[in-house]
């Protein structure tokens, strides 16, 4: 009979005897959890990407200062992608002879390809979604333009040579944020009217943008086609690069989701390791008999590996099916949060689920197998010869390698993979050390203990492998729960707090130096507290490290744009609270030395290193100073921030305008007309809508992550069951003998409860330590969020774990006590 057929037959027998049920359950749950998370996060990631797309009104935007080649658009359309072109430029509208600088966007039908325009029919009217762009002959404008021009809706405005009607108030424009510092009021018009205005000639300064949307595969193909043909000065934007503050939120949400998946994987892997350990223990006798009957080692191993492979395939497919069903549950829970329907899941998670199941089998269930190959045939005669001990290095090494591979594959981030792996390795070693110390203490106590107490302690100290597995398993289960608490209470809360209710929602710009003190006083008297105003000086970067720079020096479009544009420079004695110095030092002595501090990503894009001398042309003069620090800026804080800051000694004497950001609630917004009247030169920018969008991403992300962590929790419960099961055989025999020796059920029950409660408390302690460590690592290293220790976690973790494990362990072992001792003894052997 071939090994395959024999393996299948043995698998059927194993299955009937119930030997495999725990391992199968662990596998099914693992794969179900992983693929439910997979399907679900696949859908959420796509939904988040879609929301990101709304922010550029497309999936991909091609932008240039000159008209784009027509064949780019033709190619996109030939590939079945939707397109829409637009032009943005500065101009002046005239009303009753009064001019007002505006930013005009001329769009085609179909705009926006992603997201919606929202309008108001009157300044106080409710918002309504618009179908498509303004009709020809009509302008949609920001409400402040009505104030500035003092015109009602319906009035006619002059734009170039055309006269267009004020059709509606534009309250939301999905891609408005793409050009954040547009101070002029925005005006939306139909592209068909563009020729009539006569405003755009061949040499006019305008931004031409082609919006593209469609199916991801075709989009990716088109992007590759296009990238090979890009000319200098053309820039590609996608959802992630649309706006840094939104990209940061999406990136964090995605990271949280991946992390939740990984936590599920790890915890479920531990459940499988425990189940496999138990399987090997229970198969030892059968293997000894097979060895006695002359079966060779390699055939034996092959038979076992094949059986597990069949099992894994079956369980993985079942798990994927369950995961697919489970994600509907998650979606049903969350559908409200996402407003519109989520995109349908792709098939990728199906493959991922099966591959994950097989990988988990390799990493967690197979390592104990070589033990079976080493079972002595003598075991058939001497039933008391246990299974040979497992190789710690093989078990740990393979589990770590597989886990690392899975992290790398699932998270797609090498940095995350090695950080997590290092953390896990550290946690594993720490676990060994801590359990080692605890076992040493238990061994000391065992010498003094009597009766049942000695037996309980001996069970721990003389089977350290099992104790390690069990306490480790309990610890992991509790850790999953605590991580949920850490993530939920601490990390997610910190994430929310990066954008608190009081996040600035209005920017005040163009404040003249003589207005600084009166404005501060006025804001104070209006109950808005002390507001800090930041100086802003325009300057053009002309040299890095004594080398003159030109935009054409850089191949990258973003770098070219940065090199060509005017920088908004500022100066300050202290770094802002949401800035973090990564390299070098902030200046001391109130900035007495000339120096620059540069934002990290800008420095990377332009190739600026710490110590490089930067030269800026400011007000017609060259200013030069070394870079003494590189900073990281939290762009999603909505505070005023600068790419380049100079020391007061360097820039303090330059003429500057000032700006600030403030939070105005609905009541305080009534102050705005008065503010504009008192400080007429000041420009006001309302970013409330932008903040709402970022906040929505955070809220949905939090909800999704919490749901995914519930699955981790289920895996945690499974580990605990597996941990209890692992010692069940040993207990069965022990209880039979003890009851024969006259120990009552109540006494045994008490001893059991105590033993499990102590194991639970130890596991809880370990779990709390690791939960805080992981929380700290995640917060500080990965998510760049503040972190603090949580005393309730310590109390709740240790006590809760003692109670939960005590109750669960006692409940699971109770059936052994209900059976008459004779049955217990017979089943044990």
């Amino acid at each position, binding site marked *: 009979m071939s090994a395959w057929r024999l393996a299948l037959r043995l698998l059927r027998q194993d299955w009937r005897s119930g030997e495999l049920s725990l391992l199968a359950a662990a596998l099914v749950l693992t794969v179900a959890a992983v693929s439910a998370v997979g399907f679900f996060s696949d859908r959420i990631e796509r939904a988040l990407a879609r929301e990101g797309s709304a922010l550029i009104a497309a999936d991909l935007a091609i932008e240039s200062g000159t008209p784009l080649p027509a064949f780019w658009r033709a190619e996109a359309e030939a590939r079945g992608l939707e397109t829409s072109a637009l032009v943005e430029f500065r101009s002046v509208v005239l009303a009753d002879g009064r001019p007002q600088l505006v930013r005009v966007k001329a769009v085609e039908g179909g705009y926006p390809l992603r997201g919606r325009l929202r309008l108001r029919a009157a300044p106080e009217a409710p918002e309504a979604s618009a179908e498509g762009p303004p009709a020809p002959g009509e302008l949609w404008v920001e409400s402040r333009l009505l104030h500035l021009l003092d015109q009602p809706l319906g009035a006619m405005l002059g734009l170039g040579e055309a006269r267009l009607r004020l059709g509606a108030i534009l309250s939301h424009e999905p891609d408005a944020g793409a050009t954040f510092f547009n101070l002029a009021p925005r005006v939306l018009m139909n592209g068909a009217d563009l020729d009539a205005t006569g405003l755009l000639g061949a040499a006019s300064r305008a931004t031409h943008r082609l919006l593209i949307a469609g199916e991801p595969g075709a989009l990716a193909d088109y992007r590759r086609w296009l990238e090979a043909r890009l000319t200098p000065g053309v820039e590609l934007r996608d959802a992630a690069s649309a706006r840094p503050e939104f990209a940061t939120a999406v990136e964090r949400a995605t990271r949280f989701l991946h992390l939740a998946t990984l936590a599920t994987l790890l915890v479920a892997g531990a459940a499988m390791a425990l189940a496999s350990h138990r399987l090997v223990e229970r198969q030892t006798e059968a293997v000894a008999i097979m060895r006695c009957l002359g079966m060779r080692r390699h055939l034996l191993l092959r038979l076992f590996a094949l059986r597990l492979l069949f099992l894994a395939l079956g369980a993985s497919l079942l798990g994927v099916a369950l995961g697919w069903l489970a994600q509907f549950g998650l979606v049903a829970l969350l559908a409200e949060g996402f407003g519109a329907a989520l995109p349908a899941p792709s098939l990728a998670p199906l493959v991922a689920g099966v591959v994950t199941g097989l990988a988990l089998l390799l990493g967690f269930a197979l390592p104990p197998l070589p033990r079976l190959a080493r079972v002595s045939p003598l075991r058939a005669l001497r039933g008391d010869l246990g299974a040979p001990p497992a190789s710690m290095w093989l078990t740990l090494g393979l589990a770590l390698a597989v886990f690392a591979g899975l992290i790398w594959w699932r998270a797609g981030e090498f940095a995350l993979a090695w950080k997590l792996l290092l953390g896990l390795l550290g946690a594993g070693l720490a676990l060994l050390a801590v359990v080692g110390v605890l076992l040493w203490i238990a061994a000391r106590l065992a010498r003094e203990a009597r009766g049942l107490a000695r037996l309980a302690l001996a069970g721990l100290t003389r089977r350290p492998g099992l104790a390690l597995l069990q306490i480790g398993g309990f610890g992991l289960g509790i850790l999953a729960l605590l991580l949920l608490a850490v993530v939920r209470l601490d990390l997610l809360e910190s994430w929310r707090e990066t954008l608190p209710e009081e996040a600035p929602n209005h920017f005040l710009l163009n404040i003249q130096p003589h207005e600084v003190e009166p404005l501060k006083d006025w804001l104070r008297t209006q109950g808005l507290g002390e507001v800090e105003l930041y100086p802003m000086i325009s300057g053009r970067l002309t040299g890095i490290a004594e080398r003159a720079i030109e935009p054409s020096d850089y191949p990258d479009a973003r770098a070219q744009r940065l090199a060509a544009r005017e920088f908004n420079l500022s100066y300050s004695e202290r770094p802002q609270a949401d800035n973090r110095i990564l390299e070098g030092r902030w200046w001391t002595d109130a900035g007495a030395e000339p120096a620059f501090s540069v934002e990290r990503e800008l420095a990377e894009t332009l190739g600026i290193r710490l110590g490089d001398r930067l030269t800026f042309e400011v007000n017609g003069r060259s200013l030069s100073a070394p870079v003494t620090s590189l900073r990281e800026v939290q762009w999603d804080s909505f505070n005023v921030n600068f790419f380049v800051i100079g020391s007061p000694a360097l820039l303090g004497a330059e003429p500057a305008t000032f700006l600030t950001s403030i939070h105005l609630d609905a009541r305080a917004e009534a102050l705005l007309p008065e503010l504009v009247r008192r400080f007429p030169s000041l420009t006001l920018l309302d970013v409330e809508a932008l903040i709402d969008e970022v906040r929505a991403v955070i809220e949905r992300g939090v909800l999704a992550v919490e749901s995914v962590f519930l699955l981790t929790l289920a895996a945690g419960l499974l580990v605990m069951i597996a941990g209890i099961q692992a010692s069940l055989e040993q207990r069965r025999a022990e209880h039979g003998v003890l009851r024969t*020796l*006259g120990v009552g059920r109540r006494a045994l029950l008490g001893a059991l409860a105590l033993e499990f409660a102590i194991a639970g408390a130890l596991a809880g302690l370990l779990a709390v330590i690791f939960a805080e460590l992981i929380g700290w690592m995640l917060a500080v290293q990965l998510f760049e969020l503040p972190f603090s220790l949580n005393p309730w976690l310590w109390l709740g973790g240790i006590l809760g774990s003692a109670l939960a494990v005590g109750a669960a362990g006692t409940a699971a072992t109770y059936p052994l006590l209900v059976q008459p001792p004779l049955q217990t003894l017979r089943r044990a*052997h």
Partner: protein
Amino acid sequence: MTVGEPEPVSRAVALGKHVNGPAGALTILNDLELRVNPGEAVAILGASGSGKSTLLGLLAGLDDATSGEVWLCGERLDQLDEDGRAALRNGRVGFVFQNFQLLPTLNARENVLLPLELSGATEPERRAEEALERVGLSARARHFPRQLSGGEQQRVAIARAWAPRPEVLFADEPTGNLDHETGEHIIDLLLDLKREAGAALVLVTHDPRLAERCDRRLAMRAGRLEALA
């Protein structure tokens, strides 16, 4: 009970045990009667599967009978709950198993100590050491079961059973897993200790040599016991 007859240490009255198996209801014991007096050695012989071990379990209160009465040390077992039966066994009943049933995480000395400590015996350490010495295993007191041979393990099990000085000792095929010579040695030990302690011994065996050396021999047939000459 007849006047002048000693009160039996173990007694079964109209004992019945039925189980439901794959082939339907199965009667293992049927209206079985047994009486074991203090200090008496009784051997129960029978074919494999005849219900000998089941009877032993019922007599020691390790299982529940379907019908009839079981008395142990003057108490009616079927009227006691599980804990009551355990308390009754504690220190007064010993048990020796065919497969030894030593606790693998305890060494020889600790295995013998366990019932002494559980029954609250005085000077448990001294008595455990004496019991091990009596079975000739003082030198191996610190060894774990896996480090001992089958015969040695059974000697530890006998020391564990006798150390608390029980009134009755139940032994289930005590020589079943041992070679001839070791089996002889175990039989000597069991009977010597029985004499020294003045306790009753009820043993289930296939071994006619072992049965020969008991005061009475009973055969299990069709769920009942018959006296053998």
